[in-house]
């Protein structure tokens, strides 16, 4: 059993809070291997790659023991959103899994201030990351929502504490102040709603990626939910139309019939935006229709990328040829 603390849950009714979202994978259709490591101070890429290889070997040994290959694989990661090792782990596992989906969410509290706690082996720990490699008879399909429409104002990170994902200076000015100036906000009003309404994006790989802000520190620095560094160019972006985008994407996933279950890791920024734009009910309905189960996250893995401000999901369809046991979600 693996799990984590969250900033909110997603269950059969859509958005929920203060509950536990859990998913059980029937042993008949799934085989899994899990490992938890300490990722607080960062993880070397080579170590992460070695771990991926090791877990893949273990999974194959297990499948060989039972002599029943199930056919399809995917990877999951639940991690403390304050752990700096997420990037290396995501890259290594995404790389190792190749075309197979790798996804996950970063844990954190609703304020985005405290660390997230990851449950593994019956205990919760901060700074950790739990990884799972799963083989299944169910057909998986992954989904990533991370498109941004960016505005013109750019800001250059001129001071950053990369290991803490903190930006101390933008354009040579205190970061929170400069962000507030360009977003047209008061530096004293950088609350969750304001941050959600004025998201940031960074270009990479030929496109823009959201760069979610966790909050402003008292010293005028900005805390991010994903990697930052000096010289990074950030742009103010428009908040996404969360409900329409999700209805669209989940509708596509359900075209040949609704998934048995959809694992969802959705950024807290998206949830706040949905709530602020009175779209939470629509989002909940879309989640419910896709049998979604998941949580509100402070960072999302999708393939090799550890992103933030995005939605990462995995739909599981019934095994071809029918199955006596299908996965089911429970709140």
């Amino acid at each position: 059993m693996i799990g984590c603390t969250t900033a909110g849950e997603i269950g059969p009714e859509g958005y929920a809070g203060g509950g536990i979202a859990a998913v059980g994978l029937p042993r008949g259709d799934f085989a899994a291997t899990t490992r938890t490591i300490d990722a607080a101070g960062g993880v070397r890429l080579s170590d992460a790659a070695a771990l991926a290889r090791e877990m893949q070997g273990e999974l194959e040994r297990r499948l060989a023991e039972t002599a029943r290959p199930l056919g399809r694989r995917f990877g999951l990661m639940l991690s403390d959103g304050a752990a700096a090792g997420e990037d290396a782990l995501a890259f290594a596992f995404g790389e190792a899994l190749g075309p197979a989906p790798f996804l996950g969410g970063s844990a954190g509290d609703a304020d985005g201030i405290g660390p997230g706690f990851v449950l593994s082996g019956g205990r919760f720990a901060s700074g950790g990351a739990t990884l799972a490699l799963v083989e299944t008879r169910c057909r998986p399909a992954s989904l990533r929502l991370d498109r941004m429409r960016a505005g013109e104002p750019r800001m250059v990170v001129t001071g950053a504490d990369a290991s803490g994902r903190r930006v101390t200076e933008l354009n040579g000015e205190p970061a929170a102040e400069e962000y507030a100036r360009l977003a047209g906000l008061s530096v004293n009003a950088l609350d969750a709603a304001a941050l959600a309404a004025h998201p940031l994006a960074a270009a990479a790989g030929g496109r823009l990626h959201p760069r979610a802000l966790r909050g402003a520190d008292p010293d005028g620095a900005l805390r991010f939910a994903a990697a930052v560094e000096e010289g990074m160019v950030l742009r103010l972006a428009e908040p996404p139309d969360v409900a329409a985008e999700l209805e669209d994407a989940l509708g596509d996933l359900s075209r040949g019939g609704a998934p048995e279950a959809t694992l969802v890791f959705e950024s807290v920024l998206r949830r706040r935006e949905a709530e602020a734009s009175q779209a939470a009910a629509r989002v909940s309905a879309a989640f419910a229709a896709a049998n979604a189960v998941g949580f509100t996250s402070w960072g999302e893995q999708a393939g090799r990328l550890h992103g933030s401000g995005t939605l990462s999901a995995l739909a599981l369809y019934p095994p071809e040829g029918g199955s006596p046991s299908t996965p089911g979600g429970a709140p």
Partner: protein
Amino acid sequence: MTGATLLRPDDDPTRRTEKLRRIAEALIRRAEGGGAAAEGTASDALSGPGLFLMAAAKEAAAGPPGRPASRRAEAAPGDAASETQAVLDALPLGVCVFDGARRLSAWNRRAEDAVAGAGVRLTRGTTLGALAGDLARRRWQDREAPRRLAAWAAAGEAPQGPLTVELRDVRGGSHDVRLEAMPEGGALLTFEDVGAEREALRRLHEVNETLEARVLERTEALIAARDAAETANREKTRFLAAAGHDLLQPLNAARLFLAALRETGLDPGQARIAERLGGAFGSVDALLGALLDISRLEAGEARPEVRTFPLSRLFDPLRDEFGALAGQKGLRFRVAPSAVEVRSDPGLLRRALQNLAANAVRYTRTGTVLIGARRRGPDVAIEIRDTGPGIPRELQRAVFEAFRRLHPEDPEPQTGPGGDVPGMGLGLAIVERACGLLEHRLEVESAPGRGSCFRVLVPRATPGRAGEIGAAPAIDFDLGGMIVLLAMPDGETRAALLRGLEGRGVCPVAVADLAGAVEAVADLGAAPEMILAAPELEDASGLETIRTLRAYFGRSAAALLTSDPSSEPALGREAEAEDVELLPLGDDGGRLRAALAVAREV
């Protein structure tokens, strides 16, 4: 994007430079680190952001997972490098970045433009030394600036501070160029376009210079003119003072000799000549006295000594001095007695009044000269009225200038008493300067053919209690100097009234009929303060007389004097309709005094 969003509008130039340097440094550092990620060699050396860049590149190559891209259009796709270039291009200054090996690794459009003026093109990998050397070989307006850049570059990585020079190309472009070392051996070369700024400054400077020159020129001319005027004035004053003193002594001697000569038993012909000589010397004496007065006043030597004294102290001598002279000319001359006390310098004020009186007597051919005082607010207005030719309005200021006479042909130079200055037109100039020193206001009221009234306003020593006037106007009211026209056919009554009025300080002008009244008021040049008329005159009724005078000369208070007003109710109503009072003759003047007091107050 514009560079303005990267910088704040209120940044000062120093802050701006510092921020731009930090931005450029950060961009360069990342561009160099990002190179490894872009080349796709994953290693432990890659930081989180580097992994992010590489992951993004690989994910992009692999295509979106499971689902095609959202239908929503992406506003501005880009990778980190193009974002870096976008920011560099948006910087409001030219930037050339040299990596650790001092090779050109990044630059922007403005940097290209800056060196294009000298025909230099930027290419990746050029060393700083080569670029600076190339610049130094090109044509610039000032060859020294590029040489200094080349020298800085040639020093290699030896630690040295930033260098700033101004490069002015032959096409008129101008840039502030800054070259400085970056961490890890790199260098940063920036170009700030100051062409427009320098041009504006140069123009401003030119305008300032011409303006300054013009102001200077003009100021010098004005100073010269002022100095000349001051010098001329000082010299005139000094000359007058010297001439006056030097002339007075032999003059006095001459008069003494003349007096002695007259004692030697001259025959009548000689005596007449001697008398005329005496008169001529008197004139010269008076003229010199006036010249001395005016030079003293102008030189500021005369310091007024203000004290309280009764006006009668000046009025009584005036009556004596000018009465006889006016009588010789056939003029009526009256000084209304006054009990009022004033605060002034008696000597200076006397000088002023003497000159005003002398002027009035001299220029008046027929009619009357009146001197009187009346209250005006906290002051006493001393008036010198005459029935002379009058002064046109436009010349009323000019009469106070020295050596100015309006009617030069008019009076023959003659000896006058006291301060009478014949001929030279110095009298009013003295009056004006004396009043100026005393800070007494001087007014003129005059019109051609209507006579003149000069008025000096002197502070009253004991302010009157205005509230009492309405309550008991007859009691002890100052009627001094009040001008009253008395139209009475009967000589005896007229004479009696005249004496009574004069006894109260009133200045009455007595006539027998309407024709006389018109002539007298015309002489006076101003409406009398009050008209007192008999019900019937020889050529008109009393009311007609009043009506006529009011119509021509302005509204005066008026009363009909009759022996028994109550027996003539019809006349009373008629008079009242025209705002004319009906007063009894011979009730010891009680009601008449009251009426005069009311008229004066009005």
